[in-house]
């Protein structure tokens, strides 16, 4: 191995500091969530206990943490499925340059870059004028899709831009119908990317905040519940909740990574 230049070591240090910057604060609250019962929001630790975690599982004075967690979970799963299905369909559509495709493409880009407050405000007005109640499963779902669909779509574009169409031609030459080609050739080939789209769909929804704030109605999702807590909870219970939901996010990412590994390993056989 060649000797590394000095710049390598400097940049390695910068990178290490950056990673510390990314994870340091999260680690700090993970440590502080084990505060003793008399501990506060900052160091020092007044003993070590599970007090604040236990607090989470007991009757809450404010809000409904577990209800909001269940709603976030349900909404995340719905958003995930819808995002995968619609992204694949649109990805397939965009393999031919149909009339108006640019318009649809820029519509999706607009959905991604539009300030979230406009979605919140606009969907709020829409439901208000139609005399409908905003609810996480209707207005909340739609608002989140404006955020997750563009990501799913961009991934599908990247996938199909690299897709070797000769596999499909081979399948068709062997007499496969359009549906059979899709089901037995195209979908298995793009399966790992679909897991990626699903991960984006679920996690972006599970943590989504800005577009759901005014469109979720009276039943909060978890991020909204946490946001509400920041204004009136001044104990480490906030950190305990933050630690749990971060652990949940990591577990979700791990699960998807495992799933992807299984799919890739199956293919290698």
């Amino acid at each position, binding site marked *: 191995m060649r000797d590394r230049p000095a710049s390598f070591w400097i940049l390695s240090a910068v*990178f290490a500091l950056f990673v510390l910057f990314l994870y340091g604060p*999260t680690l700090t609250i993970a440590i502080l969530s084990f505060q003793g019962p008399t501990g506060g929001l900052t160091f020092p630790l007044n003993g070590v206990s599970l007090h604040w975690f236990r607090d989470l599982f007991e009757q809450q004075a404010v809000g409904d943490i577990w209800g909001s967690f269940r709603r976030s979970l349900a909404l995340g799963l719905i958003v995930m499925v819808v995002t995968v299905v619609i992204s694949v369909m649109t990805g397939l559509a965009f393999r031919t340059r149909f009339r108006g495709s640019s318009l649809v493409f820029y519509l999706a880009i607009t959905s991604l870059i539009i300030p979230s*407050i406009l979605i919140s405000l606009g969907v709020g007005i829409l439901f208000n004028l139609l005399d409908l109640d905003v609810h996480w499963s209707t207005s909340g779902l739609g608002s989140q*899709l404006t955020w997750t669909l563009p990501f799913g779509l961009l991934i599908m574009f990247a996938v199909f831009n690299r897709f070797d169409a000769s596999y499909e031609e081979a399948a068709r030459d062997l007499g496969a119908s359009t549906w059979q080609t899709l089901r037995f050739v195209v979908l298995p080939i793009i399966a790992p990317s679909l897991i990626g789209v699903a991960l984006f769909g679920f996690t972006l929804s599970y943590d989504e905040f800005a577009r759901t704030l005014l469109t979720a109605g009276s039943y909060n999702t978890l991020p909204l519940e946490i946001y509400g807590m920041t204004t009136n909870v001044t104990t480490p219970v906030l950190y305990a909740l933050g630690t749990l939901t971060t652990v949940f996010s990591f577990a979700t990412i791990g699960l998807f990574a495992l799933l992807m590994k299984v799919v890739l390993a199956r293919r290698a056989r």
Partner: protein
Amino acid sequence: MSKVHGRGQALSAWLLSTPLIAVLTVFLLLPVALIVTVSFWQSSAYSYSPAFQFDNYGYLFGSPVTLSVYLRTLMFTGITWAVTLVLGFTVAWYLAFHVRTLPMQIGLFLLCTIPFWTSNIIRMISWIPFLGRNGIANSVLLDLGLVDAPLEWLLFSDFAVILAFVHLYTLFMIVPIFNTMMRIDRSLIEAARDAGASGFQVLRHVVLPLCKPGIMIGTIFVVTLVMGDFITVRFMSGGQSASVGRMISNEIGLLQYPAASASAVVLLITVLLMVGTLLRFVDIRKEL
């Protein structure tokens, strides 16, 4: 992408994109159209009704607050953009050109992207024990004798707002820049070196120009996220600093929908103009 093969294919393409178009029509186009419409309506104490008048805009442009809020938002955007660009470029440069094996590159890249899939609000909250009056930063500074009294401006200040933006959004620079860097033909860099270019010259005249599309895409993300933000500013400044997004969310909180709509229209136009300018430097469809 292939050319249109025939009517059948075009029809199926249209049918396949219908669900996307339907969702975006109901939850993007229609809401934006309503915002534009309502921005001309009139409001009473707790409701609003159809009209066609320019009072909302008149009030918006007549208020001295508007300009200062926009300037502050632009300041947040400008500083965040500059810091995330330098930081993101450096990290991407390290990953693409200094890390030598692909598994290591992918591993470190994932290390940078994983926080993207965790909660933003938790990541903001996690700065409290670090920046607070009795936080880690102040303890360290006091112990080192660098300050005599705890710094008050670390948390709940403009500094904290920008720090949080950098913390949350540097990723949006790293990913597209890393992506363009990985596509640079390594022989170009060797050719430059053989021709006698220094490390800095390679960076300045070879890598930087080739990374322009990635930089532009990262810029679009960072600029639009910061321009429209209303939560980070509120939370990290402790409610003391203003931004355009916060102004709108306050108006919504007061149920002043026509006023909020007028502000939102002006914000949307501002953001679209900025993005439109940036898009002149990059063809997104070619970069995927």
